[in-house]
């Protein structure tokens, strides 16, 4: 039996609440707002949703966020899942929704998440909430923020491959340029490599501008079966492959700091889709820190191990380069409301593949990749998306 997700499910609706600084809006409100916009985008009635998958929300007290969201919207789904694999949740949720639809558990699944990390919590509490995701016995007593786990991997990468602070900074500069073209981006003022290097040190080697933003916002995707996908208003964007990999929980049990489970996660997704990294036209890659993005370029197969620094310096992750990445500006410049962050990567890659990105359109984009990860590279999830022409 050939078990695959390839071409069985498509994204037919995308919606986003206002993002950035959005005071006075609860996580459920932001997520519901995004959902109504996704329904409008698809030209779909709410009653057609019979499955709901969400991430969890730091500023919300609901443990079963997917169930609470359903009640908020007065939806009674026959499939519901509040997924928690940290930053990887977005891609894991899309993969799971596609699996649920192709297995007949649901016909049309809302995949949504929202949080108000910026105004719903104080910045200290937002960081603390993230920090508490580290182990309370063997990690947190030493005051290790989640940023620190990513910092130590980047630091080791610099040591082993000669990656420079300037090369890390180039990622932030590039995504700021992308954000400047994206309506609704939180940070649009141009920055230089010197601006990044002169910004306050957070945890070496990361300066403030090497770190993602803290934001409010919600994003919703609507997935349905390939059979139904043509009933709606937009070009369906198909799920061609999905892969995940969970290599460790504690950072000290990560086998090597400079190679991550993204290698295995992406390989599974590429194999299912029948494509390779060089086939990708556009990418949305989790960019919680500049060094994270560099390491992912290597592990996802866009350049060789150790060569991501020069790759980024050469302009390969922007327009005209080999893999235009995070054309919305990513978590570094568009928005980072926590778990919902990689939902924006899905929204952007989907819009790129619909050819609806206007002045920031990557010409002729047919195939795209979204990769999400979390918890100091513990959790990895990849999804390959494509237009009808790629089926």
């Amino acid at each position, binding site marked *: 039996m050939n078990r695959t997700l390839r071409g069985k499910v498509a994204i037919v609706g995308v919606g986003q609440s206002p993002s950035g600084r959005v005071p006075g809006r609860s996580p459920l409100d932001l997520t519901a707002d995004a959902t109504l916009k996704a329904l409008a985008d698809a030209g779909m009635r709410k009653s057609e949703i019979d499955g709901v998958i969400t991430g969890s929300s730091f500023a919300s007290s609901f443990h079963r966020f997917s169930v609470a969201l359903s009640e908020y919207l007065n939806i009674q789904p026959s499939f519901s899942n509040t997924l928690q694999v940290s930053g990887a949740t977005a891609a894991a949720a899309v993969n799971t929704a596609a699996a649920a639809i192709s297995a007949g558990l649901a016909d049309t699944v809302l995949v949504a998440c929202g949080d108000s990390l910026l105004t719903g919590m104080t910045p200290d509490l937002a960081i603390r909430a993230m920090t508490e995701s580290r182990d*309370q016995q*063997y990690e947190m007593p030493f*005051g290790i*923020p989640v940023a620190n786990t990513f910092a*130590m991997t980047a630091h080791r990468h610099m040591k082993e491959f000669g990656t420079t602070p300037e090369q890390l900074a180039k990622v932030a500069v590039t995504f700021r340029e992308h954000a400047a073209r994206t309506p609704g981006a939180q940070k649009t003022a141009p920055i230089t490599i010197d601006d990044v290097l002169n910004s306050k040190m957070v945890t*070496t080697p990361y300066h403030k501008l090497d770190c993602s933003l803290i934001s409010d916002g919600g994003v919703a995707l609507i997935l349905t079966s390939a059979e139904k996908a043509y009933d709606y208003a937009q070009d369906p964007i198909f799920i061609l492959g999905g892969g995940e990999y969970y290599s460790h929980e504690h*950072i000290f*049990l990560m086998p090597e700091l400079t190679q991550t489970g993204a290698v295995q996660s992406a390989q599974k997704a590429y194999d299912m889709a029948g494509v390779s990294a060089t086939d990708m036209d556009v990418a949305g890659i989790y960019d919680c820190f500049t060094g994270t993005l560099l390491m992912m370029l290597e592990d996802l197969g866009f350049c060789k191990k150790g060569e991501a620094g020069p790759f980024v310096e050469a302009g390969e992750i922007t327009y005209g380069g080999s893999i235009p990445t995070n054309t919305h500006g990513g978590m570094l410049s568009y928005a980072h409301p926590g778990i919902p962050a990689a939902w924006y990567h899905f929204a952007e890659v989907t819009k790129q593949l619909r050819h609806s990105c206007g002045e920031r359109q990557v010409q002729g984009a047919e195939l795209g990749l979204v990769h999400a990860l979390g918890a100091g590279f513990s959790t990895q999830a990849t999804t390959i998306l494509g237009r009808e022409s790629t089926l």
Partner: protein
Amino acid sequence: MTEQALKKPYPIADGDSQVYWDGIKDGKLMLQHCTDCGHVQYYQQRLCRLCQSDNLVHKQASGKGVIYSYSVVHRAPGPAFIKDVPYAVLLVTLAEGPRMISSLVGKDFEALDFDKPVTLQIVQISDDVYLPCFSLVS
């Protein structure tokens, strides 16, 4: 909420880790050795992570290690650590093999480097809480 945020996360031993934290209080870093496959593990649990045998014995570690990676924290992860910054978090490879997260005793960050030898120094952080930290070998 604010009071909670000001509280440092102190380790609370569970069934798997009681021997480990008792050892730390006694000034010893205990590692689990599997008598079936020879695997040495940190942190403590009932089964060997390599072969799932439960024939594990605790042995005191030498306390010697080298720095695999590190990061100097300038922005505290929450109010509880504001008084401590800057401080260095270390990822130490122990002489026995396992790696562990720890922190540097002192603030000689200029002297930090990859692969530098460090030695265990157990630090008392409250009345009855002790942490396994490391100092640079001079």
